[in-house]
């Protein structure tokens, strides 16, 4: 019960202090909208439905990775993060609470292009049962990557730089813009090491039915990625922040 009180209040504080601030709300809305419009202008004849998996994946990825890395680095530089490390709650509870805010923010970002698209196309064929858990798992893995960055960064600008170093190669290797089969042979194994590859594949299957892997396999691998990333983050926090 005590851990739950701490968890809930860390989540509430982060949402109120960081995610509900006007710059972040506007980022959460404008960024996915801009990407949607860019894609529509670039490929006028293209079906909006075909753009949706990429837009959702990008919105979640960009929303989550930088936010968690930046907020944690910001709290660490002001030393308020020490309060969380010194609180009588387990490191796992603290990490999950910090992640929860980012996951909520990532999911919110993901649905901006969906809502936008609903004005133009019929979304009744979308398999929501697959799409919703996929968005959730992409948000989790992306948040954990943001946390990995936060552990390594000392300053907010470092967190932002490291985030970009991760995100852009991922976008081009996960099969969103270029099918994995069209990538050079030496890059394909890298693609299959990225959680976003599997998230994108589920989204493609759920929205336009063009997945290349089994959804069950993708969900399983996303869960494995989430667990491994969580354990690495926990280990790194223990090693680097408790000196």
């Amino acid at each position, binding site marked *: *019960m*005590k*851990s739950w*009180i*701490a968890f*809930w*209040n*860390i989540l509430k*504080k982060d949402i109120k*202090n960081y995610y509900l601030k006007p710059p972040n709300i506007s980022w959460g809305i404008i960024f996915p909208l801009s990407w949607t419009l860019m894609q529509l202008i670039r490929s006028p004849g293209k079906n909006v439905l075909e753009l949706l998996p990429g837009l959702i994946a990008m919105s979640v990825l960009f929303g989550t990775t930088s936010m968690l890395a930046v907020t944690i680095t910001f709290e660490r530089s*002001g*030393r*308020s993060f*020490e*309060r*969380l*490390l*010194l*609180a*009588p*709650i*387990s490191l796992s509870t603290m990490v999950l609470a910090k992640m929860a805010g980012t996951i909520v923010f990532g999911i919110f970002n993901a649905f901006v292009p969906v809502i936008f698209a609903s004005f133009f196309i019929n979304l009744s064929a979308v398999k929501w049962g697959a799409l919703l858990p996929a968005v959730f798992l992409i948000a989790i893995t992306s948040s954990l990557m943001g946390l990995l960055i936060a552990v390594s960064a000392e300053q907010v600008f470092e967190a932002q730089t490291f985030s970009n170093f991760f995100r852009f190669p991922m976008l081009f290797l996960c099969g969103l813009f270029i099918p994995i089969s069209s990538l050079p042979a030496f890059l394909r194994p890298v693609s299959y090491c990225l959680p976003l590859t599997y998230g994108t594949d589920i989204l493609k299957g759920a929205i336009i039915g063009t997945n290349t892997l089994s959804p069950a396999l993708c969900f399983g691998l996303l869960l494995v990625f989430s667990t491994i990333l969580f354990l690495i983050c926990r280990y790194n926090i223990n090693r680097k922040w*408790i*000196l």
Partner: protein
Amino acid sequence: MEMVRVTNLKKKYGNFTAVDDISFDIKKGEIFGFLGPNGAGKTSTINMIIGLSRPTAGDIAVNGIDVRKQTKKAQAIMGIVADESNLYNEMNGFDNLCFCAALYGIRKEEREPKARQLLEQFRLTDAGNRPYKAYSKGMRRKLTIAAALIHSPRILFLDEPTTGIDVESSRYIRDMIVDLKKQGTTIFLTTHYIEEAQRICDRIAFIANGRIVATGTVPELMESVKHGHTIHFITDEITECLADEVQAHFRGSNVTIRSDRSLVMASEQRIPLLPVMAFFRDKGIEVYEAEELRPSLEDVFVKLTGIESSMLGKEKANTTS
């Protein structure tokens, strides 16, 4: 019964030894001062005790709980005030206190009245709804201490609580520390200010270069430095040859004339007052005052650590700026 027991504690960062095999106890309900210059190992020691840093070697027990093995259990009874006020800028005073209480699992119906009570206790009620970033340094310090008390800790760690804040807030914090002790809270205080430690601490440890050089009550520390005896006399008049006459009469004494009305007499042995007074009377000199001069705690610190008091003064200026 000890609230804190530190045994052979050591902390190394690469080849640098920040804390070198120190041991000490803090009794329940006492104010324990940890005095030393920057880089002496104070913060490294505190960080190991509170579980923010891992010892290279040694044991730490807080209220009988092994901090290395049961860190979170030990942290539940600690209140911690870091050397920097580190609350959340975006939140107001009241919300900051409520959030800190929630981290200790305190329910809303308990934490809100407690937060209000602490705001009142620290004279911050009017500022409770203002964002923390708008607080003055003194107010921030007080709110940070209030946040450390929100879960009624058994032991409070205060790292430089009065550094860089106004005189009134400093005085208030010192009074508050003494009140907390009266209520049974154990206090671990690190400070640069020797006079602050002397005024409020029950026992003090001097730390320099990662080692504890002395521990004891203020009188014990004073006594630990052999200083002989010195008496300052204020009289109606003093002639130039008086110093030689006194030294000749009282063998083993060393006399210095400070002004035309005062002289200082020092001796390894206790100085019996009556013969000295009789000597002055025979010379027709009236004695108005005789005061034994004792070394200050600062003198003791300088002698034991080899660190000049000017060095501490310099650090105070650096920390305050």
